[in-house]
């Protein structure tokens, strides 16, 4: 997160698959190319699910972190 300022943030803590994926997709759709989304999820599957989503949508995973069971993702719309 160091130097990138997100254009939007999304809190999916407490949600389970498939909701974080569906909400993330919607949030990315609301951005324009190059804009950045900061996402927080507690669903353990999201560690692999969010990167899998982005591989398919062509958006970029800039950074992923985990602390105290919260996964945070910095995503740049492709």
């Amino acid at each position: 997160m160091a130097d990138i300022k997100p254009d939007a943030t999304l809190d999916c803590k407490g949600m389970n698959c498939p909701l974080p994926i569906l909400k993330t997709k919607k949030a990315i759709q609301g951005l324009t190319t190059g804009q950045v989304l900061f996402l927080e999820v507690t669903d353990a599957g999201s560690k692999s699910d969010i990167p899998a989503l982005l591989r398919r949508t062509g958006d970029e995973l800039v950074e992923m972190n985990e602390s105290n069971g919260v996964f945070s993702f910095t995503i740049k719309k492709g």
Partner: protein
Amino acid sequence: MENKKKRMAIIASKGTLDMAYPPLILASTAAAMDAEVAIFYTLYGVDIVNKKKNHSLKVAPIANPAMPSPVPFPNILGVLPGMTSLATMMMNGMIKKINWPSIPELLSLCTEAGVRMIACTPTLEMTGVSKADLVEGVEVAGAAEFLDFAFDANISLFV
């Protein structure tokens, strides 16, 4: 990002609460992953898109030894009156605990994401369900229409 979109074709043939979730979860997720998705609702599966029924789908405990129970429970007792309601209540509790959307909510997420929904014509005929009973956006067609989509699918599932 592929030049040609991936495609998933699902047949939903069951009308119980537990079997309604997998097709809808996979369909909405695949749509989010930029795939083209169609679900063909046939036989009991039509209940999933029947407005009069889809908010109260049930779980059958009988012949379902995987159904979790707070106490050890011989499966045969599932024939007793009230057991289906009990199992359904428990299932609804578990669904709530993990914050899952309801079936009608999940359906609208699917249609919003562009998932094609097709209800099987002979099933409607057989069960006396009309198009007006179905969730908005559901098409009514037969096997050929679904297969025309499914022939080019990368993933085909029968649920």
